């Protein structure tokens, strides 16, 4: 998906895009919560260690952080749209 730069959108289009972006963000949160549950509690019964740390602790902390970074990158670089914030009705 290619990121768009739309400077000449109407107010209605901008608000519609912003609403869609908020929904993407909400869905990203749901995805992260599921990953958090699976990565931590989901693997806590496994007796696996990475660098002397239990697998659940690594996945549940650094893993969650990395997934959050990936989500932020996906949202901000692919799904979110650049737009002029001035507003066509500004000052009227």
């Amino acid at each position, binding site marked *: 998906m290619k990121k768009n730069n739309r400077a000449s959108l109407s107010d209605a289009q901008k608000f519609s895009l912003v609403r869609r972006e908020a929904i993407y963000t909400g869905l990203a949160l749901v995805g992260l919560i599921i990953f958090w549950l699976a990565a931590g509690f989901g693997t806590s019964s496994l007796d696996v260690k990475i660098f002397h740390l239990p697998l659940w602790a690594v996945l549940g902390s650094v893993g969650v952080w990395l997934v959050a*970074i990936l989500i932020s990158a996906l949202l*901000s670089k692919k799904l979110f749209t*650049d737009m002029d914030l001035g507003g066509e009705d500004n000052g009227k």
Partner: protein
Amino acid sequence: MESSFFALRSLILLLPLIFFMAVMVGISIFVRHKQAGKNFVSSYFVGNRELGGLVLAMTTVATYSSVSSFVGGPGMAFQVGFGWIYMAVVQVTAIFLVLGIYGKRVALLARKLNAVTVVDIIRARFQSDFLAAVAAFVIVLFFCGTMTAQFVGGAKLFAAVTGYSYEAGLILFGLTVVIYTSIGGFRAVALTDTCCAIMMMVGIVLLLHYVLKAGGGFENIMTTLETNNPELFEPFSFGNMPWTIYFTQWLLVGICTIALPQSVVRGISYKNTQGLHQAMLIGTIVVGFMNIGINFTGILAHGVLTGTAADYGGVDNVIPTTIVQAMPIELVGLAIIGPLAASISTISGLLIVASSAIIKDVYLHWAEKNNHTVTPTRIKFLSMTATAIIGAAVFVIALTPPNLIWLINMFAFGGLETAFFWTLLLGLFWKRANKLGAMLSMTGGTIIYCATQAAGFKIFNLHQITIGITCSLILFLIGSYIGKKSDDATLKIFFPSD
């Protein structure tokens, strides 16, 4: 001989801190000078909407990360282990959520409405001066609680590490933050927050390095911990970390933080959407680094401190004691800048929003409504004075610190979230949301939250935020369905359609 050694030690400890505070004040004076001639209200309260991506990220993170993230949090990690990090990592959602959900919508609306505060937007959405006044009151009330906790936490840390008195610490960093915020306003707050966030990260790296060194290396510390403290390696920490804490923290420091006015106002302050997108990414990287880094250091502190947290006076003393024991004297002064930076960046962020609530949301609105002319000079004087007075009042409260200060901090956090979560979320994304719903939600939800806190009433032993947030939702929905719909002119601004 002994006195000269003490004097030298004092100088080594204080010099980095004094230098850092001087830089903060210098930045604010520079900002005030650069902003001269611009619209004062806009420049003082939202920095003329000129923030770039990096500064937006850093100021959002620094305001969000308080002194308890650097002191109480890692102290708890020392006590309960990796479960604490697993719980604290939910905070990585805070930046991308608030900027992703509100960032652009608030920015678009602020420009349309010429709004400089969150309360401006609430007033315009629900067409209610009463609701705006309640919102301003809630902000000032709960912010004062949070700021007091920051002052007390910072000064206690200063006293524990340097050996100077609590009052000396309060005067050194407490007065400095009040002065630089009063002078420079939001722009200075954003720039100093950026310096603070950098110093927090430097502090974490330094402390981590010296803790590993003092503990004989990572492998040695972990092997000893596995033998002596097996509970640290279990998510529920043998009962010390019940599921209710995980659930509550997702609400308190994760999802509901999108409604904190001090975070949402950042959406009004940035320059363009490119900056916002950058800030989402940078902010998530930084907040995760800080949370995992400092809490992991708390666990590794077992390599330095051989007793339990209680042996050192409780969890709040774990990090100060570790700093003193693990770090060379010439770096201790530098190391405590990190946690103190967390404290002052939160105070400055709250102080400027509290000041705007009084001056912009209450006084200037009242003057405009009653056709009172307020000269730019008077606005400037009142804004700076209000900031200084609020800061000074909290400073005085902190001089005689109340008991249970950390509970007051969390109480204030939950109160703000209860008051603003549904009002902002539903108000900005749901057409049906109306004045009655917002009023019932904000006032009723906050009162119920405060009452359950006062009575100590809990359901399933969950924090009272769960009751507050549920009640405020129910009240919002009831009010929205039985109350009058918002007028078409308002809906056209907030929900434009072709």
